[in-house]
């Protein structure tokens, strides 16, 4: 229930993944799916489709359970081998926001469809390392404002990390204010 109405879940699903059609669909050639161009959708056409569409196409088998699905889903470039290698090398230097705005959400959805333990382990590790960095930046606001290079890290955070940062920052702030308020009264 929370996930159906939740705007974050909806926007996570709107992220794109490359999908290769395994059959020709002339009926969709003029649709916005194909950027309204007339190029026919043949068995080899690859399009970047949003997850809500791509997942269902990859799972449906119209000709019965033994036949091939309508389309095959590939890993989006945000979770490709290049990014994975960069994350194992140095998790805090990768700009997750450039890869995908809801990076961890995307990772969750892809892991639901593909059983990729290695990717799961890499993502978990990345999250831990980056969370440590976020907590540090949230607590010490003065150094974060003055430090010039920390701006790159902050702009590279994806949405979940931004929420984490805001929560940590607001929490410290509120406690400080409460201390001041009670010491006065």
């Amino acid at each position, binding site marked *: 229930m929370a996930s159906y109405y939740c705007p974050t879940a909806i*926007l996570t699903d709107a992220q794109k993944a490359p999908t290769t059609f395994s059959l020709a669909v002339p009926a969709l050639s003029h649709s916005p799916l194909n950027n309204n161009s007339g190029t026919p959708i043949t068995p080899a056409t690859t399009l970047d489709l949003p997850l809500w569409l791509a997942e269902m196409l990859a799972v449906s088998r119209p*000709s019965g359970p033994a036949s091939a699905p309508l389309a095959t889903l590939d890993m989006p470039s945000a979770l490709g081998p290049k990014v994975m290698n960069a994350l194992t090398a140095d998790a805090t230097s990768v700009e997750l926001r450039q890869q995908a705005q809801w990076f961890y959400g995307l990772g969750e959805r892809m892991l639901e469809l593909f059983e990729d333990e290695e990717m799961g382990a890499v993502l978990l590790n990345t999250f831990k390392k980056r969370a440590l960095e976020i907590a540090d930046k949230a607590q010490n606001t003065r150094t974060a404002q003055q430090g010039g290079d920390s701006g790159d890290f902050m702009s590279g955070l994806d949405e979940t990390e931004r929420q984490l940062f805001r929560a940590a920052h607001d929490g410290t702030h509120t406690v400080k204010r409460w201390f001041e308020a009670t010491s006065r009264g």
Partner: protein
Amino acid sequence: MYAEQANKLVLDAKRIEKLPHLPPYAATTVRAVTKEVRDLDREVSNLLAPYNTGSTQSSDGTHIKSSGFNPADDPATACALLVNHLSMRRNKRCLLAYHRVRTDKLEEMCWSGVDVADLQAASRRSTLRSGNQSAATSSLSAEEEQYMHQYSDLLAAYKGQWTDIDLTGSLEPPRDIFIDVRVLQDVGEVQTEYGSITLTKNSQLNNVRQSDVERLIQQGYLQKLG
């Protein structure tokens, strides 16, 4: 891509969650999304038309006595139907999420004691101030205003069961009996439990009882100092 407008609605919804006030209802975008759903529905009916007539002719010319669509026979049409169906479901989900976020915000405002009539008066005042002489456009659609009216009535009925405590009051315990306030809006003379108070804009009142003015602070007529 299908559901582009719907995506815009959801981005709006995400933004609204953080804002303190409610921005205007995106009527044009909502209309565009519903139009897209209707178009998709029409396309689905067109795709299924040859199958549902129950006639003796199928799409590839062979004679078929049965009616109804068998996905195994024509996976291409099945794919098109699936895409249209999913797009319709997606649009529906986005619409529902957008409206839900707005109604949640409205309910929150009702619980925090915002008066419905005040809200409309405030929006009218702000449009006049900005020099816009046309009819006052509220941030809410007609249905939302109706919703808010009925919800406040429901809330009032619920609160009426316990007269000695105010369920929509402030959750912060008072620190002093008397507080200082500044007047934000001109309301003239107000009757309180211990006498009357005259409120003129931008004046400051010292030593007013918190219990009297709490309601006025909540409604935005006064501002607490210190």
